[in-house]
Structures are given as structure tokens and as C-alpha cells.
């Protein structure tokens, strides 16, 4: 591997010292399919003599076997490491590559151009200091070029190279270069990229090597830097260094009773012992006592360092809290406007409960209907009821508790964040699906919604309406009546899990469960049965007051008591469901063996055998279980809830 071979051979220590103090630059290549991203990185590695002999031998063999260059070296194969990628000649997932020159050390993420794999591009872009956007000189600015540029701008990458590639195929034409540049600049202006710290256009041939490492004689009309020169010299400012202190607490460090430290990485500003700090969201203030590391205590810790801080007071600090500069703390809120990038095949469901992970904190999240979705081609704001895979939109979001945050410093966000320098570590979040635990999206916080700032709960009369306003649905009771073994619980359980995934707050009261607790003192005489139902009706009523959708699954054999329950609720809140199974069938099923006992006389007062069941005359939902599957029955109940606008 040819670094500076002489220095290595002569004075390895001096070489290592020079290497040790190199700065690190992270960049990505992005752009449309086949624009030459992987080829470019392969070429960079090759030209920097960073490809080992054995890798080169493998590359030659691979190029002959699956290459796209008719046996010549296909540099993309140095990057496309998955077998599916090599077979299809495309990049599917980000590849990270590492190289260093005399001046800098680089981590490069080669991202896929295919729209289908946009989420992988975003993964690579989120940590980049510089984006190299490739454009095929023959094809100019394409939809994917625009999408990636928009994402680069949105994510706040402030240094951009627009590499106009495959110049070899357009005779190194300056006109082609200039017209693509003009077209791109116009778009860049609309997405805020024109405000980037640097935007450099370079005519390039990744395949032939023009302007990759050295300036090319084929483009005499171009007097800018070659790509490598730009990457080696571009000044990258990290705004976070001069921002106010932010340290999300990842782990409370308690080796023994005498030590209580807070471990985390500083993501903004710096900190010294004696500094006053504010711990959010609680808002407690304290003073930094020590900055503890295994290499000894520090006088100061700066952005990027992972440390453990102790405080002078015994304040309550837990994982997810943010230790902030005392005089410039983050904001705290629970409702926001945010950009959302959807990253899963299953579309976003407004109102469904998701999780948000931001910093070291995970909270419950629901997303409103998008205010609009962005057409990446025209930048038009389109009406949208949801976001599908790879779509980008602006939505209001609500959390189940307040969090500290800073606005995300994305360029495409323009005016939205004026006034605050922001911080990508305390303003960027991922969205996690509660059932699969997968990461399904990402978001950038813009600002807290006024209504979230203004809520002083003392001022609000908290009643049923106020409570249910916090939900995406209204309260109500689904009352399932039917013989023992008719299938009430089965259906009720399905209904509940369906409602749950829709973001509806539910509670299931089931005969068997309640009889073990609240109604432990009641038997099965008629009067006990009445009292049983009265209590259940009361409990359901309280839960409806609390804003829930209550599912009651009780034999409840008497019409009168069911009427009593209905009267306890407001109009339209009570849905009577008759789970109708003929006695013979229920008796055949006999899941708990109760009918057998009743028949043999071991059990008395058993509904249907020696105690009456009064079927509803006109139930709101009538389910005849011998002709309807439980799934379909559950859907009938859901439909009834919809018809009454309890859920949407």
C-alpha cells in the first residue's frame, strides 16, 4: 500500500505522528442510477494506489466474469460487494470505504442510485461532511439527481461537488458541461443548496480518470481543482463546535455508592468543571463537578468527545435527558412540525402509535395527516393522506411526553429554522414500528407547535372532551353478549389488537378476568349477575370518561342490565354486539368443560342450561358465528365503530 513510502521506510514514528494528526473527512457519492458513483470511488482508490495486489487480482478476474467494461477493469466491482449487486451490476446498499492521503483521512460511503434504495442513500448521507453528486454528461439532471440533491440539502450537508461524469462520452465538451451546470444551479437555488458553504462543479471521467486525482489535459477549459484536490482541501466547519453545550445522557454510571456519573457524547459546544448546566426536560440546574475519563479527569471536553460528567448536586438525571448549557438550554415540547422521510414498504399510517428515537431517548409518537408531500422533481407541495416508501413530506407530530430538542439545521428547510443554529444530533430522529421494531422512517424537527408551548394544564377544564381530544378517536363501549363458549373473547381480542395497531386506546373487560378481581365476591345467582353487570357498566363508564374504547366481553344474559349499561353512556357511545351461537354448538365446543359440568349437575345456574339467556331483540351488530369467521366478525365490529364516528 503506497502511502508516503519513503517516510514510512525511513522514519515510521514520524510518519505515524503525521498520520495521527490528520483530520477526518466523511463524504458520499450519490446521484442517479449508473451515473458512475461506484466506478468513481473504485478509481479514487486505485489511483491513490490503495488497492492491494490480491484485491486487484480478484478485480481482474471479476471484471472478466461479471464486469460491464468488456473485460477492462470495472472499478465498480471494488465496491459492489453483495452477490445480488454483482449479478445485477447495480449498488443496493451503502458501502463504506476508507483511505488516506498525505493530508487527510477519508471515509466514503458509496450510495445506491436506484430510487428503491433511497433509504440506504439517506443512511450514508446522514453522517457526511461532503456530498459528491454525480451526473451523467449524456443524460443531464434526472429525477434521482434532484431527489438526492434535495436530500443532501435537507440533511444539511453544506459542501457539495457536482461531478459531471462520463465526459469521455461527450468529447469533453465544455458546452455540455456549462449547460448542465446552469440547469443544476437553477434547481440548487430552489432547494437552498445555493446557500451551501461550497458548491464545486467538476468535469470528470470516472472510467478514464480525468480530473479524478489529477487535472486532465482533455479539459483544458476547466481551471478548477481535480476531485481529490477539492476533497483534500475543502474547509469543513462543524457548526456544533461553537453551539451551546448539549450532552444527551446515554448511561448513568454507578460503579459504587460514592460515584454517580452521566455518560454521553458531547454533540454541541464544550464543557468545563464549574460550568452551570440545566438538565432537560426537567429543567433542574446544577454545576459540573468533574469530567471523568479512564485517562484522567479533563479540564475541558469538546464536541465529539465521549465522557462521563459528575455534578455537584444530587439531582435526578436519567438516560435520555440532555445536559445543556445553563444559559442557553434546548427547548422542550411535545408537538412539532417536522419533515418526514418514509423508508418502509408499508406506508405511514397517520394516527398509528410509532416510536421516535432521538438522541438517547425513545418516546411514543403519532403523526398527523401530512400537510403536504414534496414532489422532488418540481418541488411542488402536493396534498397527501399518507407517505409511501421514499416519499418526503411535512407533518405535525405529537409525542406522549415532552422532549428537549433543537431545530434540525437542514438547508432545504430555509426560513423555517431562522433564529436558531440548530443541531442535527438533537433535531434528527428515526421512526420505529412498534410491532416489527424496524426503522420505518426518519424525521427532522423544525419547531414546536404553538399549542404545545401554550398548554398550561391548570387553565384547561379537563373533561371527557378534553381527554379524548388527545386521542385520535372518540370514546365508546363495545358490549359483547352471548352464551358461554359463543366466541365473545376470541372476537373481542381480535378487535382489540386491530384497534391497537390503528392507534386507538383500548381496554378489554373480560368476564373471567373481572370475576377474579373486582367481582370476586359475586356468585351466579340472578341478583349477583345483576350486580356483576352493574359494576361492569360503571367501570366501563369511567373508562369512557377517560377517553378509551372499552371492549366488554360478558355473557350478560339479561336485557335489562344491558339496557342499564347503555343508559350509563351518552348517545352513540354504546354498541351492543350479539355473538350468536346456537346452544348445541356452544355445548359441543365447550372450551372450558362447563357445559358438561352443568349437565351433570356439578354446576348450577349455568346460562342456557338452568338459567335463561335473553337474546337481544335488535342488537347493533349481530354475529352468527356458525357462518362468520372471527376475523370477519371483528371487521363488522370495527365497521360499526366507524359508522358511529368513534374511530375514523
Amino acid at each position, binding site marked *: 500500500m503506497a502511502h508516503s513510502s519513503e517516510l514510512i*521506510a525511513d522514519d515510521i514514528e514520524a510518519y505515524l505522528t503525521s498520520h495521527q494528526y490528520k483530520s477526518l473527512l466523511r463524504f458520499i457519492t450519490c446521484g442517479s442510477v449508473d451515473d458512475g458513483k461506484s466506478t468513481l470511488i473504485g478509481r479514487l482508490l486505485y489511483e491513490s494506489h490503495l488497492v492491494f495486489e490480491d484485491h486487484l487480482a480478484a478485480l481482474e478476474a471479476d471484471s472478466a466474469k461479471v464486469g460491464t467494461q468488456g473485460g477492462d477493469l470495472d472499478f465498480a466491482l471494488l465496491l459492489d*460487494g*453483495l*452477490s445480488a449487486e454483482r449479478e445485477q451490476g447495480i449498488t443496493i446498499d451503502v458501502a463504506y470505504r476508507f483511505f488516506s492521503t498525505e493530508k487527510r483521512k477519508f471515509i466514503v460511503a458509496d450510495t445506491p442510485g436506484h430510487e428503491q434504495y433511497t433509504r440506504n442513500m439517506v443512511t450514508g448521507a446522514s453522517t457526511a461532511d461532503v456530498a459528491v453528486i454525480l451526473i451523467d454528461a449524456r443524460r443531464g439532471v434526472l429525477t434521482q439527481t434532484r431527489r438526492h440533491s434535495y436530500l443532501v440539502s435537507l440533511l444539511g450537508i453544506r459542501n457539495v461537488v457536482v461531478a459531471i461524469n462520463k465526459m469521455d462520452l461527450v468529447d469533453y465538451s465544455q458546452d455540455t458541461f456549462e449547460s448542465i451546470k446552469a440547469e443544476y444551479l437553477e434547481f440548487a437555488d430552489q432547494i437552498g443548496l445555493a446557500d451551501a458553504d461550497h458548491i464545486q462543479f467538476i468535469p470528470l471521467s470516472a472510467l478514464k480518470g480525468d480530473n479524478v486525482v489529477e487535472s486532465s489535459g482533455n479539459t483544458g477549459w476547466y481551471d478548477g481543482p481535480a476531485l481529490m484536490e477539492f476533497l483534500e482541501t475543502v474547509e469543513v466547519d*462543524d457548526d456544533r463546535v461553537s453551539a451551546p453545550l448539549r450532552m444527551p445522557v446515554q*448511561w448513568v454510571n454507578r460503579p459504587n455508592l460514592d460515584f454517580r456519573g452521566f455518560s454521553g457524547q458531547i454533540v454541541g459546544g464544550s464543557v468545563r468543571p464549574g460550568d452551570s448546566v440545566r438538565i432537560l426536560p426537567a429543567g433542574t440546574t446544577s454545576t459540573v463537578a468533574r469530567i471523568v475519563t*479512564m485517562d484522567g479527569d479533563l479540564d475541558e471536553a469538546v464536541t465529539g468527545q465521549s465522557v462521563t460528567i459528575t455534578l455537584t448536586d444530587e439531582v435526578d438525571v436519567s438516560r435520555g435527558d440532555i445536559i445543556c448549557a445553563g444559559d442557553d438550554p434546548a427547548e422542550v415540547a411535545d408537538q412539532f412540525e417536522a419533515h418526514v422521510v418514509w423508508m418502509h414498504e408499508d406506508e405511514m399510517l397517520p394516527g398509528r402509535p410509532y416510536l421516535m428515537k432521538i438522541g438517547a431517548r425513545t418516546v411514543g409518537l403519532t403523526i398527523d395527516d401530512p400537510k403536504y408531500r414534496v414532489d422532488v422533481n418540481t418541488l411542488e407541495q402536493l396534498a397527501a393522506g399518507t407517505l409511501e416508501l421514499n416519499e418526503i413530506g411535512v407533518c405535525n407530530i405529537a409525542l406522549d411526553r415532552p422532549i428537549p430538542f433543537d431545530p434540525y439545521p437542514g438547508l432545504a428547510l430555509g426560513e423555517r429554522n431562522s433564529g436558531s443554529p440548530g443541531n442535527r444530533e438533537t433535531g434528527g430522529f428515526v421512526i420505529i414500528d412498534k410491532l416489527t421494531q424496524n426503522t420505518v422512517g426518519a424525521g427532522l424537527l423544525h419547531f414546536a407547535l404553538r399549542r404545545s408551548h401554550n398548554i398550561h394544564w391548570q387553565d384547561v377544564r379537563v373533561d371527557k372532551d378534553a381527554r379524548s381530544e388527545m386521542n385520535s378517536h372518540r370514546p365508546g363501549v363495545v358490549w359483547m353478549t352471548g352464551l358461554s363458549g359463543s366466541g365473545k373473547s376470541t372476537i373481542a381480542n381480535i378487535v382489540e389488537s386491530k384497534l391497537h395497531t390503528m392507534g386507538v386506546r383500548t381496554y378489554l373487560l373480560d368476564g373471567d378476568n373481572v370475576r377474579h378481581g373486582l367481582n370476586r365476591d359475586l356468585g351466579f345467582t340472578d341478583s349477583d349477575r345483576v350486580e356483576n353487570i352493574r359494576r361492569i357498566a360503571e367501570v366501563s363508564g369511567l373508562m369512557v370518561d377517560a377517553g378509551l374504547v372499552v371492549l366488554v366481553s360478558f355473557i350478560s344474559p339479561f336485557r335489562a342490565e344491558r339496557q342499564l349499561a347503555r343508559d350509563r353512556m351518552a348517545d352513540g357511545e354504546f354498541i351492543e354486539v350479539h355473538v350468536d351461537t346456537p346452544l348445541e354448538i356452544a355445548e359441543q365446543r365447550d372450551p372450558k368443560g362447563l357445559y358438561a359440568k352443568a349437565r351433570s349437575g356439578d354446576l348450577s345456574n349455568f346460562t342456557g342450561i338452568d338459567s335463561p339467556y335473553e337474546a337481544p331483540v335488535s342488537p347493533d351488530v349481530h354475529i352468527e358465528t356458525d357462518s362468520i369467521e372471527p376475523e370477519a366478525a371483528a371487521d363488522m365490529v370495527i365497521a360499526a365503530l366507524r359508522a358511529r364516528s368513534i374511530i375514523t
Partner: protein
Amino acid sequence: MPTGARLTHLQRLEAEAMQIMREAVSESDRPAMLYSIGKDSSVMLHLARKAFFPSIPPFPLVHVDTTWKFSQMYQFRDDTAREIGMDLIVHQNPECIEQGINPFDHGSAIHTDMWKTQGLKQAIDMNKFDLCFGGARRDEEKSRAKERIFSVRSPQHQWDPKRQRPELWNVYNGRRSPGETLRVFPISNWTELDVWQYVHLEQIPIVPLYLSAPRPVVERDGTWIMVDDDRFQLREGEVPETKSVRFRTLGCYPLSGAIESDATSLLDVVQEMLLATTSERQGRLIDTDSSASMEKKKQEGYF
């Protein structure tokens, strides 16, 4: 460090690894660190001590053993765990013990699969670990270059390269569905040079086999294999000779190729490495079958 100072790249990598480990431990119920005794494991362990200092890292070290490691490695492993005060769990696949699986009679593929791949799955299942740290680096190999830092494995321990979770900024999703486990790679972004330089700067102890010394070896398939104990099956006419050799990677001694070298100090090693023209994994006999072989192994549950 003065205000506004920039961190060097090694400081950035160190801080990143510490952040990853704290995040992983916080989101896991039963974390463990896979400890292979090599230089990457040594660096990872050192970073763990830093991440949780003054606490001792709150998880055990797990060594998936094959009984065929170099004897110096076992010595080093036991000394290290004792000095740091961490629990050490050694797992040896009982089927392998029973059947006497070894690289001489069964070949490297079966040996590696049974001892390492199956052994690892057993160790994770038996101890119910839900998250394991591993010392893999992205610069080692093309399919590693594609893997996330938090990598989800199915209940059957499989890696599905097509269904990797998006991973943005330094926000890691450590959640798992029932049966799923996570592999977490805190030194993903380190290169071989970074590792050596860090070992040098931080004076991290490493197994002496990385440094050159006279050792009994025989030549096989173009590399030197060390005759570490009397289980070595010499082929006809083979006579061990003494050569000054060192190892670039350490594994089972019959499968680890040594190179002739005069590098007796760490600096010598770094110097030789930087001037070298072949990549590190070449010394590892198990990877040479085909370009896509590592991806296949990982899908089957290899670390």
C-alpha cells in the same frame, strides 16, 4: 484540549465506539462481548473499559473456542479477563468435542462451520444473549463494508443483506422482535492501520504472536503454518523448521498463515504493514474460496 479544537481522526473513532457501546448496552437486556483474543478484540475491549469507566464493562466476555487456538492465545485470554475483572464465558461446541472435529481430518470448512458458526449460535442461545459486540471492521472485506453498525440477526442467526435497517446519524435502533438478536460492531469504521496505531498510542497489550520470533513452522499452500503442539499432523516428508515469522491475523493455529518477518516491535509491524502489497485477510485460509464467500458465511450466521 483548547476550546474549538478539532478531534483527530483516532479521537473521533474512539468517541464513536464509546457512544455505540453505551447505546447498545442501554438498549439490551443481556449484552455480551465476543472476544476472539486478536488485536481487534483487544482494541474493542480497551474501548469498552473507557466507555464505562469507572465501572467495569457491564457484560461478560464470550470466547467461542475451537480448542485449536495458539497456546499463547489461551494464556493471554485468561490473564486479560482476570486483570480486568470481567466474567469470561468459554464455549466449546460439545458435538465437536464428541466427534473430535479438527482442521486436519475434517478440513477448514467443516472445522470452521462446526466450531465457530454453530458454536457461536449455541453460545448465544444457551446464554440468551440478545446483543453481542463484535470486532469486525468494514475495511476487512467487501460484504463487511456493507453491514450496519447495529446488525439484526433472525432467530436462526441469519443476516439478510436486503433488509438492513436504515441507520441515521448516531441514532441506533437497538430494538428486537422476539427471537431476534443484534450484532453490534463498534469499530466498524476503523482501518487496520487505525487499529495498530491505537494499540501503539494506548499501549494496549496484544498476543506476542503478532511480533516476529523464531517459531517452528512448515510450508503449506505457500504460507508458513506453525507447529504449535503435538496434535499437528505432519505430512510425509514434512519436517518443521525454525523461521522468524509473525501473524497478521490470529485464529486456529493450523489455519493461520504466518509471514516471514523481522518485525520484532509494534512499530516494525506497522511499517511492514504499510509497505505491504497484499491485504490482511489473505493470511486467513478460510476466506480464499470466492469473493462472495464471506457474505454467504454471514448469512449462515458466521460472525
